[in-house]
């Protein structure tokens, strides 16, 4: 090992501090979820579970959860189809403008969210679309395509094309080859792409805020509104705690599917 002992100790210490920094706010929110007091002062006054009951009977919250699931599932479905098609095209064919297509796919997440948000909102308003679930889905699908695309194309690059060729040689046409050979080989890449896309959609607020209109709330929009009403904060704490629990699922699944490396594949 090249690094001297003092340097290794310093690096270990710095890493521990960064980890502490990353986890401190999450731990604080988890503690607040069980805080007896209605106000948010530190330290908490006592332990209670009553806010969980209040969260479960909050109609607006439950409606927001349903909306978020509908939007996430629809946007993911669109992104799965479009992202897979684009990945197959970019991987298999050499054509003029190939680089431009890759660039166009990344653009919706590379440009600041506020730009995507206002551009979509202005377009919907100009052409008289009513803002609602439909317009949220269009926005989310647009930036989820690249997530599926990245997962599928990474898999295609790793796989040899010989099984597809063998399938063709054995007389299968392109549909059969896709259904019986390519599709199954893409399986877990599609699964992790879908998972990432759904999680991204479930969490999005910067663009959603522009495309949601007045009457529609998703989970992030509900939290954003509730944060600013002190009486709702105990329920917000519970929701935050549950969302932290839920967010461990994609990390765990991604690791199960393809090792620790992909857990950071939100990028």
């Amino acid at each position, binding site marked *: 090992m090249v690094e001297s002992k003092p340097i290794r100790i310093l690096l270990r210490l710095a890493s521990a501090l960064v980890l502490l920094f990353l986890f401190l*706010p999450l731990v604080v929110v988890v503690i607040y979820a069980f805080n007896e007091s209605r106000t948010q002062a530190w330290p908490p006054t006592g332990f209670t579970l009553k806010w969980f009951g209040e969260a479960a009977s909050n109609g607006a919250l439950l409606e927001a959860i349903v909306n978020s699931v509908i939007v996430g599932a629809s946007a993911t479905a669109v992104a799965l189809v479009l992202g897979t098609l684009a990945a197959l095209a970019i991987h298999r064919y050499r054509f003029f403008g190939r680089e431009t297509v890759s660039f166009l796919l990344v653009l919706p997440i590379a440009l*600041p969210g506020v730009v995507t948000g206002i551009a979509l909102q202005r377009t919907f308003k100009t052409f008289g679309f009513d803002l609602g679930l439909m317009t949220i889905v269009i926005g989310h699908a647009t930036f989820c395509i690249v997530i599926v695309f990245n997962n599928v194309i990474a898999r295609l690059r790793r796989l040899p094309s010989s099984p597809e060729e063998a399938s063709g040689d054995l007389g299968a046409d392109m549909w059969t080859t896709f259904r019986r050979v390519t599709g199954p080989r893409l399986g877990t890449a599609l699964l992790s792409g879908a998972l990432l896309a759904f999680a991204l959609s479930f969490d999005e607020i910067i663009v959603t805020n522009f495309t949601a209109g007045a009457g529609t709330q998703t989970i992030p929009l509900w939290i*954003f509104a509730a944060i600013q009403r002190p009486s709702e904060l105990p329920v917000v704490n519970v929701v935050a705690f549950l969302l932290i629990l839920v967010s461990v699922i994609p990390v765990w699944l991604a690791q199960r599917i393809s090792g620790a490396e992909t857990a950071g594949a939100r990028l």
Partner: protein
Amino acid sequence: MDDRGSSNDRGAPVRLSIQRRLAIWLFPHRRVQLGLLLGTPLGWLAIAYLGSLAILLLSAFWTKDTFTGNVEPFTWSLKAFQTLFAGEVYRTVAIRTVGMAALVTVTCAVLALPIAYYMARIASPRKRSALLVAIAVPLWAAYLVKVYAWRTILQGNGLLEWVLTPFGVESHGLKDIANAWLVLTYLWLPYMIVPVYAGLERIPGSMLEASADLGGRAGTTFRRVILPLVFPSLVAGSIFTFSLTLGDYITPDLVADAKFIGNVIYDNSSLGNPPLAAAYSMLPIAIMTIYLLAARRLGAFQSL
């Protein structure tokens, strides 16, 4: 092979299914195959995304009816740009936002390097996977949950005040621009750690040994060997930290009560002055376009 193949008992050709005939016809027509694959995704992005950006660009030159407050599409004026260039406040907000994006990016890079280095070169394989998962948890936790968590810590009566008061230090509650620095750094730090870790892991250990054998001290090896090799990964991470800060309007509002470019755009987008919002949004678009082109020259896209 399926029995719809090429002949029946009498040796005469049978009718092939439409699917099968299409597949046969498509086989030599690679351009048509490509068109079928690419048509829908490209059409979606061109219409829903590029089309929207075009409308946004055009709408910066539309007029707003002073009586009704409605935007009059396709009636042209330069008023929005005149307002922007005349207003001192728009310049201040732009400088504040870009400055914060740069500051957050540098802070993330400084915090990411040691832990990424530890993960890539010092930690045992077991510890390394544990750390990767540990970084993925805050990365995946909901954005608003993280912002909200910091709000509860930073607010008056919060954890920070409780810690600081015994030392006689006063906290500024939720009105301090430094809060935006802290929270934005927190939010985007994992987006920097992941590519920097990947970049450091690709550096062969033999290079560091060679540097040490040639008499390079730790500082020299870091400056002359590690930093140049990991630089494209830092640039790759910085695309996220910079762009995400540039486009954020929720965090500055919730933790620092400060206005960023995004706040001006959002506040004017529907009720205020939409052409002004559209005109102002040309600024982050221009900045990110330049940033992405520069990043590509620096090799950042190979490091993503």
